[in-house]
């Protein structure tokens, strides 16, 4: 198994195991955690992070990042509210919001690929800009009177199960993202770009085009998340989803996606997302304040950058020890 894969798989396993431990502990020790209603809340509240984590994973794998996602979501929600107030039909509004997301993503992508600016800087700038526009668009209004069919879909669950309706389309998107990253030439090229951009270019990979596509899709998914957020919480405000980018990045890195690019799996990223979601759910049940929750998210972010590195060091040390005791050059090295 390739080194990079072994490492990623190992960290994936760590995160997956951690997720299981947290679930088990929560089921047994946290009152009110295990019932279907709470679990559906957990999933529903985590979906915004999960939705944006899909394209974010692809971006980080290719060595870029987008911090403007939460602002794009907020802008999309604000525009949705403003247009609804104007009396436009929801069936027209939603496509317009998604289109807006595409534009937001394109702007990021063009600034990064055409002007060669670092995506961290560009998207910190648009993080502020998109949020500012959202405030201009909607002011301090809160729009809540969306059609109930839409609200029910975004907040409801299938019968008495723990599965929210919205979870099903998410699974479809997840499947698409997994295939795109791990089973198509496009995904292959993203890993190559992240691990060695110049070599990828010399191999004919259209680096700028791929990145532009990624930023655009990220904008689209962020806008979709903004629409979902406004419906799920039945409230379109300019400050919707504020700070969500922190959770998304934390979850993706926690899932073993290397911040330097070129390494990671979507499975790991999604495990990271739901681990974070479960922790946030438990903290809410335990009445941990929102501020403390942010502290925990921040701590996880640090852990997630450190974790894979420490795991790698251990792997290297083990390989070294193995080398010292390797008895015979013919024996293949054990894959661990």
């Amino acid at each position, binding site marked *: 198994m390739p*080194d990079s894969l072994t490492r990623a798989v190992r960290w994936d396993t760590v995160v997956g195991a951690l997720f299981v431990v947290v679930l088990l502990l929560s089921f047994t020790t946290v009152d009110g955690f295990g019932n279907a209603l709470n679990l559906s809340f957990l999933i529903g509240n985590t979906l915004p992070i999960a939705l944006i984590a899909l394209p974010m994973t692809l971006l980080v794998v290719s060595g870029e990042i987008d911090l403007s996602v939460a602002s794009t979501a907020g802008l999309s929600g604000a525009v949705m509210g403003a247009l609804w107030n104007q009396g436009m039909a929801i069936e027209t509004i939603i496509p317009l919001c998604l289109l807006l997301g595409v534009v937001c993503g394109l702007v990021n992508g063009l600034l990064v690929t055409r002007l060669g600016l670092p995506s961290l800087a560009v998207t910190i700038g648009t993080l502020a800009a998109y949020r500012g526009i959202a405030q201009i668009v909607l002011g301090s209004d809160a729009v809540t009177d969306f059609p109930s069919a839409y609200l029910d879909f975004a907040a409801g669950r299938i019968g008495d199960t723990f599965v929210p309706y919205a979870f099903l389309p998410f699974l479809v998107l997840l499947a698409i993202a997994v295939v795109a990253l791990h089973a198509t030439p496009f995904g292959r090229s993203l890993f*190559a770009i992240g*691990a*060695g951009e110049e*070599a*990828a270019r*010399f191999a004919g990979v259209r680096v700028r085009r791929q990145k532009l596509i990624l930023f655009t899709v990220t904008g689209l998914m962020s806008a979709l998340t903004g629409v979902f957020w406004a419906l799920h919480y039945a409230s379109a405000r300019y400050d919707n989803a504020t700070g969500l980018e922190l959770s998304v990045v934390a979850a993706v890195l926690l899932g073993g996606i290397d911040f330097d690019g*070129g390494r990671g799996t979507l499975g790991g990223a999604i495990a990271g997302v739901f681990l974070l979601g479960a922790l946030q759910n438990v903290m809410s049940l335990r009445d941990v304040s929102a501020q403390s929750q942010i502290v925990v998210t921040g701590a996880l972010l640090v852990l997630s950058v450190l974790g894979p590195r420490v795991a790698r060091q251990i792997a290297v040390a083990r390989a070294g020890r193995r080398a010292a005791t390797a008895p015979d050059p*013919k024996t293949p*090295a054990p894959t661990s």
Partner: protein
Amino acid sequence: MTHPSDTGPAPVLALKGISKSFGAVRALRDVSLELFPGEVHALAGENGAGKSTLIKTLAGVHRPDAGQVLLDGAPVVFHGPGDARDAGIAVIYQEPTLFPDLSIAENIFMGRQPRRALRRIDHRATREATTALMKRLGVELDPDRPARGLSIADQQIVEIAKALSFDARVLIMDEPTAALTHSEVARLFGVVRALRDQGAAVLFISHRLEEIFDICRRVTTLRDGAWIASEPLDGMTEDDLIRRMVGRDLAELYPKQDVTPGEVALSVRRLTREGVFTDVSFDVRRGEIVGLAGLVGAGRTEVARAVFGIDRRDAGEVEVDGRRLTNGAPSTAMAAGLALVPEDRRAQGLVMDMSIERNIGLTGLGATVRAGLMDRGAERSRSLDWAVKLRVKYARIADTVNTLSGGNQQKVVLAKWLATRPKVLIVDEPTRGIDVGTKAEVHRLLSQLAADGVAVLMISSDLPEVLGMADRVLVMHEGRLTAEIPRTDATEETVMAAATGRAA
């Protein structure tokens, strides 16, 4: 200082019974070596024989699993390259390790810049010292230029300057000449001889055997990590040395087949990139191998990049098989049947953290697809096929390429491009860092490709290689094509004259 003629019995640096393994790969097995003051000692061996590992062990980069390093007869343990340097050992590693954002001068004097009052760095002194070093080496490089964007040859020069910048008692050079042309090598050897005459001990690695015979007095040969012999070069022939390295006799080094050239496959017209090269026009026909010669910095690599579309051209046209190539688009160049094996394998040729399989697969992303999805079986068999054809020495195809020796990395780059079955193949230093045996294989391969109708443009700093393989030699000098010499007239003299601008 010891005089070169009476080296005496005391080696300044010695290795005794060194072994070193990486996982299951035993890179060195019980290797011993003695370096005497006032001698230039060659270290020879095929790709992956363990030469670089030996040097890294000596310099404290790797810790040996067994054995000792002796300095002036006393055992020492270096904990890192810094320790070795403090002991007066200067090392030039095979792959340049410059800081891209620092200037050439800062790179050379990293961590030991001349100081002014209050420990401030004396930039002027640093710059002047750098200029002096460059003069010694006979190259013109601006000390203030950042290392980013330097060609491999220039990077190598900077590494050499770095090693020369402190008075080392022991100078160790791992393939310093691999990217250099004859004239830079001659300069380097001048400097090395002077150091040797002052009593320094020099360990020299090169796959160009004529260089070994030119400057070295003794040679130690490694094969598959094992010590084979340490002996004087006097009275040995190149064939003797090859037999030591390879363990058998070698077929012809330049197996050039005679081919009648076909139609024009690559046509370059008035290609210009401002300030880099001007008005470059040439054709390469099917079946032809055209050599592109010139000094370091003449613009050969830059022409290749612009032809392939890595850099945009300011003027001119490129056609492959009559199809005009879009400016600045390698993907369309590839689709038209063009392939470029770039000069810098670590940055441009390979994604170092990816596996051999994926690296070779990278040029086949369009080919190993079924219904829009990667066909992993097809990808693996394509990669395996070419890795085996080029005899890449690896443990597993899924190993990352950074675990391969330099020469084997180069083979992976070749494999990755030959796998695209190009109509026109541009190779930039195709045998840089490749051992003689493999070099002969690569030459046979290029010759075979040409015989099969591929048009080959070969950029090489290895003049014998150009003369041995090319049907025609194009020569560049300061960004212009100055001569076109047919095979029958191409000699070291005619090519060098055009390359230095004397004949134009």
